[in-house]
């Protein structure tokens, strides 16, 4: 953002110096509001326009493929006419099961928040122990490597049997799905703390709590946030699958319900919601990561 501004300021000096030689008449730089807003707009446009063009092309291809007799999936125009209330009004509430997709997404997000929050706390704690202690790593790491490959849905029957209720079961599935990358990345981050920082802590005689808060967490933060970012993506993947099976309110169950009543356009709208929310969650964690880990990248 600063570059065009600096360039604009440098030009008059250059033209003034080269004026006696009268070689080239430099165009006077745009000043004031337009000079600042136009470059910003053009950078924004460079980011926004290409994906919009791609999206438009995709919609056209989709329309051409599906807007004919015998097509199994609805075309964009059909979705617009049939599922219009879902698209334009995310937050309506007509009855216990007749609510807007915004409400459903919020219910799902609530479950994700609890399950993912637990995974974050427990994952960082376990990862710290594994990263710090060779014996904890030898004892736990092989087990974790096996457990982490188990599909989220495979955990669901077990958790339903254990909790006998759909709400805690769904939360457990979120937890168990997203906790592994957090554990593993935290452990790698802790193991990679440079010996120099450990020496500093030793000379200062930091106690274990101070060492954890002042050296370990900041030093391993980039790794921890990589784990957290993978974790949020996985938990958003898992919640949809879990809700399809456990029922109740939620974006996953909505898809299942729509499928059972053959409302294919509703499913497409729900998919767009899921993708959008997943994207926002990822960006959110990345944003927090960028804010928290500023300065830790280089030494």
């Amino acid at each position: 953002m600063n570059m065009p501004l600096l360039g604009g300021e440098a030009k008059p000096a250059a033209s003034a110096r080269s004026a006696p030689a009268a070689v080239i008449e430099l165009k006077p730089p745009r000043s004031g509001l337009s000079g600042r807003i136009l470059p910003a707009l053009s950078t924004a446009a460079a980011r926004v326009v290409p994906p919009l063009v791609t999206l438009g092309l995709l919609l056209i291809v989709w329309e051409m493929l599906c807007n004919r007799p015998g097509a199994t999936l609805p075309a964009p125009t059909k979705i617009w006419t049939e599922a219009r209330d879902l698209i334009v009004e995310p937050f309506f509430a007509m009855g216990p099961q007749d609510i807007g997709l915004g409400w459903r997404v919020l219910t799902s997000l609530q479950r994700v928040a609890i399950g993912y929050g637990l995974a974050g706390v427990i994952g960082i704690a376990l990862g710290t122990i594994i990263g710090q202690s060779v014996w904890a790593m030898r004892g736990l790491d092989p087990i974790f490597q096996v457990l982490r490959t188990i599909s989220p849905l495979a955990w669901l029957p077990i958790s339903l049997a254990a909790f006998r209720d759909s709400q805690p079961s769904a939360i457990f599935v979120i937890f168990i799905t997203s906790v592994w990358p957090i554990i593993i990345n935290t452990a790698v981050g802790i193991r990679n703390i440079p010996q120099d920082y450990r020496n500093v802590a030793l000379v200062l005689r930091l106690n274990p709590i101070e060492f954890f808060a002042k050296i370990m967490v900041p030093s391993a933060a980039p790794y921890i946030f990589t784990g957290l970012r993978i974790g949020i993506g996985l938990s958003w993947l898992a919640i949809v699958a879990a809700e399809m099976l456990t029922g109740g309110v939620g974006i996953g169950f909505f898809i299942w319900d729509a499928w059972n009543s053959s409302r294919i356009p509703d499913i497409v709208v729900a998919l767009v919601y899921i993708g959008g929310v997943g994207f926002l969650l990822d960006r959110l964690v990345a944003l927090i990561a960028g804010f928290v880990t500023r300065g830790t990248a280089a030494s």
Partner: protein
Amino acid sequence: MSLASHPYLKIDHVDKTYARGAQTTEVLADITVAIDKGEFVSIIGHSGCGKSTLLNIVAGLTPVTTGAVLLENREVNDPGPDRAVVFQNHSLLPWLTVYDNVRLAVDKVFGATKSRAERHAWTMHNLELVQMAHAKDKRPMEISGGMKQRVGIARALAMEPKVLLLDEPFGALDALTRAHLQDSVMAIHAQLKNTVLMITHDVDEAVLLSDRIVMMTNGPAARIGEVLTVPLARPRRRLELAADPAYIKARQRVIEFLYARHRAPALQAAE
């Protein structure tokens, strides 16, 4: 005589052996050095001779195999702020500002004895001592290598150590910056009268800064080859010393030790 029998810091018959499986490597053999309060002692030797291991032993970061390190006649085994280290690669915490890096040490060492305002003043005092107060809000990656090392020195000084340990502190710096920092260290030493143990491989640096130079033979099983007392009055000035006969003689003694009698293994192999 009583001073000699009870030195301030004593490295007493220290042996260091590394065992890897059945194989053992002796790194240091029977090292004994006695350092008086306020003395500036350098340890010089070719790289790989174990001089950094020796400093880590004094710092308590590496345990001895046999022998002991005595500070004020008491054995020290573990690291602590009474033997503050200025690390070769500065080792500042990159997520903290210059001020916070020093403040962390001040808070830890004086948390119980100084008030918040006093700790702030002490932090700033030490940053001013190394002329880094102007950059107190910068992060380590925003300042130059020489500046980082200055902050590292400020952090070590702020612990009010009994012994200041310098581990090749200027090794990674360019010649001009190094000279500038050496002058700063001399000025600080003159002002605070700290006891300093410095590891170096730079002959001029050792002669310029030290009261005594401990020369180590090549490893494995490095031992003390010779100890040279530098008979130069303080304050010392780089420019005047260049032609000083005592300086030239001291320099020659060290060079002769390092390059004629105990040349680096790599140099011997090259012939």
